[in-house]
């Protein structure tokens, strides 16, 4: 039997390359990695994998690639990539969003044209959770998404919050495009990943590590009891491979969305403390800043940054992010996909932090 042809969009990215790795390990696929960028330095590339350079916004080029490779399965990871994008920044977001929505539409369209059987879309928990003022405790997939858009017009909220709503609504749109195109011949599903971290993770771990140099580690925002979800990159990759098998086999995942997290909700404070601990840093004292005070401080700093035309690290968005409960249930993924987070949080943090330390050491030498 010929190996199943799998095409991974964003295949050289942070998550994409991990998925390619998982597929190579499975040793039963003919893999094509499609990306706008060539594999970056220091990442593993495989001789058995075909690397193709292509922009998902370039429909003609995309069609050409798909006609050539004729994939059976498409794993579309491009949309989740918020590489180098600060969660609260405004610059470049519109461009990124159009890639997410229009890019997804393009990939779905050419996949349908080329007779792809299964389509897995990397969505994000933000489709539900990016309603920043709200708490989400143990939410599941039955919670309806898309309320972010209705609030968008009503609230006189800051730019950062508006941009987050936009993000949420656009992510929801992209997910909707994928799930609504599910048919028996073209099975689709969406994996809503929690914030992903891992080695070469550009955001989560480096941001937390950055607090040490900034002297921000003693400050606790809010009560410090709110739990949040994270997920290690290889666990998300596992979920993609499981979803792929399900769609090609039983098909119980077709047309469905799944939350994918490490299943270990933890308080933001403890995640930070654990990361700092990996770098041998312990805050010398602790100072609790009440949520309301922090909110006004964020408001003030946003204005200060706006006036001085700088980008700040602290805003009301950060405060809301740090003080809200945001965790979900992965029971559905466990039940339907057989998903098990293989790498636990402590091990995942150790690996990721060691990698960052090596990067820092290498930079110091150079």
């Amino acid at each position, binding site marked *: 039997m010929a190996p199943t042809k799998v095409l991974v969009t964003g295949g050289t990215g942070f998550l994409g390359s991990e998925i390619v790795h998982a597929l190579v390990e499975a040793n039963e696929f003919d893999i094509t990695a499609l990306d706008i960028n060539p594999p970056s330095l220091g990442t593993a590339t495989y001789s058995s994998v075909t690397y193709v350079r292509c922009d998902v916004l370039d429909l003609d080029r995309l069609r050409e690639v798909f006609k050539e490779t004729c994939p059976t399965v498409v794993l579309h990871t491009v949309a989740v990539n918020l590489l180098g994008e600060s969660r609260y920044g405004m610059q470049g977001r519109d461009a990124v969003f159009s890639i997410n929505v229009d890019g997804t539409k393009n990939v779905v369209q050419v996949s349908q044209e080329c007779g792809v059987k299964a389509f897995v879309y990397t969505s994000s928990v933000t489709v539900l959770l990016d309603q920043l003022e709200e708490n*989400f*405790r*143990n939410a599941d997939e*039955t919670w*309806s998404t898309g309320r972010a858009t209705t609030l968008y017009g009503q609230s006189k909220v800051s730019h950062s919050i508006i941009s987050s709503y936009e993000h949420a609504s656009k992510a929801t749109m992209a997910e909707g495009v994928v799930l609504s195109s599910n048919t028996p011949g073209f099975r689709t599903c969406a994996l809503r990943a929690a914030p992903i971290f891992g080695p070469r993770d550009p955001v989560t771990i480096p941001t937390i590590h950055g607090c040490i140099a900034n002297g921000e580690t003693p400050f606790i925002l809010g009560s410090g009891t709110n*739990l949040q979800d994270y997920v290690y990159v290889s666990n998300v990759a596992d979920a993609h491979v499981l979803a792929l098998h399900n769609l090609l086999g039983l098909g119980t995942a077709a047309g469905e969305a799944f939350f994918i997290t490490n299943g270990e*909700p*933890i308080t933001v404070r*403890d995640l930070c403390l*654990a990361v700092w601990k990996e770098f041998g840093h312990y805050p010398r004292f602790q100072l609790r800043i009440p949520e309301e005070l922090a909110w006004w401080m964020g408001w003030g700093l946003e204005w200060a940054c706006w006036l001085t035309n700088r980008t700040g690290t602290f805003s009301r968005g950060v405060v809301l992010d740090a003080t809200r409960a945001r965790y979900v249930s992965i029971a559905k993924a466990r039940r339907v996909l057989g998903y098990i987070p293989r790498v636990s949080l402590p091990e995942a943090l150790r690996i990721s932090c060691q990698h960052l330390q090596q990067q820092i050491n290498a930079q110091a030498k150079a």
Partner: protein
Amino acid sequence: MPGVKDIAYYAVHPTQLRSIIQWKVWHNPVHERDESKESASLKRCFHFLAQTSRSFVAVILELHPDILVSVAIFYLVLRGLDTIEDDMTIPLAKKEPILRDFHNIIEQDGWTFTENGPNEKDRQLCVEFNVVIEEYKKLKPAHQAIIKDITKRMGNGMADYVKNAEFGINDNGVNTVKDYEKYCHYVAGLVGEGCTRLFVEEGKANPALLKRTELHESMGQFLQQVNIIRDIKEDFDDKRRFWPKEIWSKHVDKFEDLFKPENKDKALACSSEMILTTLRRADDCLFYLAGIKEQSVFNFCAIPQSMAIATLDVCFQNHDIFKRNVKITKGDACQLMLESTQNLQLVCDVFKRYTRKIHKKNNPHDPNFLQISIACGKTEQFIESIFPSQKPPVDEKKNPVNAEEVARLKNEADETKWETIYMVSAVIGTILLISGIMFTAAWFAGARFDIALSQAKEQLGQLFGSSGPINASVPLDTKPSTDHSEL
């Protein structure tokens, strides 16, 4: 009588006193045993129960009559077994066969045991064990079979443990975490199984609890492990060690080093790891409690569990456990009993509260800092899964089930809107009517509205006009006089 110390304590801790008073005044037993119908031997059994178990007697005595005697006899049988196992004055050659054969002994009429050392505190129970046997034989055959089976397995497990200790296989007590859990299984996990079988037999618990064996195992393990953690100092003084070597050897070289003041941090880290092992079973215990159908059985199961999580909290990051026996306060105990004798939601609240207390004391320097944090998070997520603190937001447009509700709300809103419109128009209408009548009356009386209007205009112009007061003042001088002369 309360001492001066107590009075001083409660003066500054009024909430504790309040809990005690509330418990003493308001708690009514779910069921009360009827002493008049009891035989002399059963009365003697309850006497021993009160003597041997201070913590369990209250909850046992309130149990439903269907299982009250069975649970009490079950407890006394196991207590007898335990008394023989614990007694270091009995040689192994004598002890082992008794332990292994105890399930048959409980069927021998008139069997007693008088060879316990004089210092054994429950010695008298064995001396008069014939009363327990007498009552055991009156139990339902199904109950007898459950008690016999558990006694057999526990007796053999204890015999193995005693033998290993004697021959130096476990010369330093328990070695691995597996051994530790095995020991707890024999002394507590099996009790959990026996009780569950009795409850299910009498329809007091969901039969599914028998299939999910890990749940009743966790119930027993949780209680036993908490006792082992709390009693570290007492056991050490009695030359017994139940903390597994696998755990303490990560922190100190010799077990006795845990008690040296200079090893405070290491000892705390070691106790944290023990507490973590126990904490991971908290969600199983809550899940088990969800399967109990009868209030007295629920109280019987829930009270010890609540006490256990609270004890875990006082032991966590507390170096005193290596110096003396730490306990939860009497006020806290009463508060916990109040909360554990109602429903599962309140017990979940207790677990959540104490989990958060433990979480708050978690120290980043602790080697198991992250693991403890995750265990706390998991317990909280589990509680959230059975008692969600928030509902999924309802999306009216997307939810067809609520279409009628939406239509009804819309109608209501429409009605209110029209009511408001009628009300406002009625008020305006009345005002217009009255003003109209007044104006007409004034007109009949010869009022000159044209002059009044132009005058008003000018006055307004004077107030706001850009042309200045002088121009405006010219007509102002003439008009009023005409106005007045006309009138």
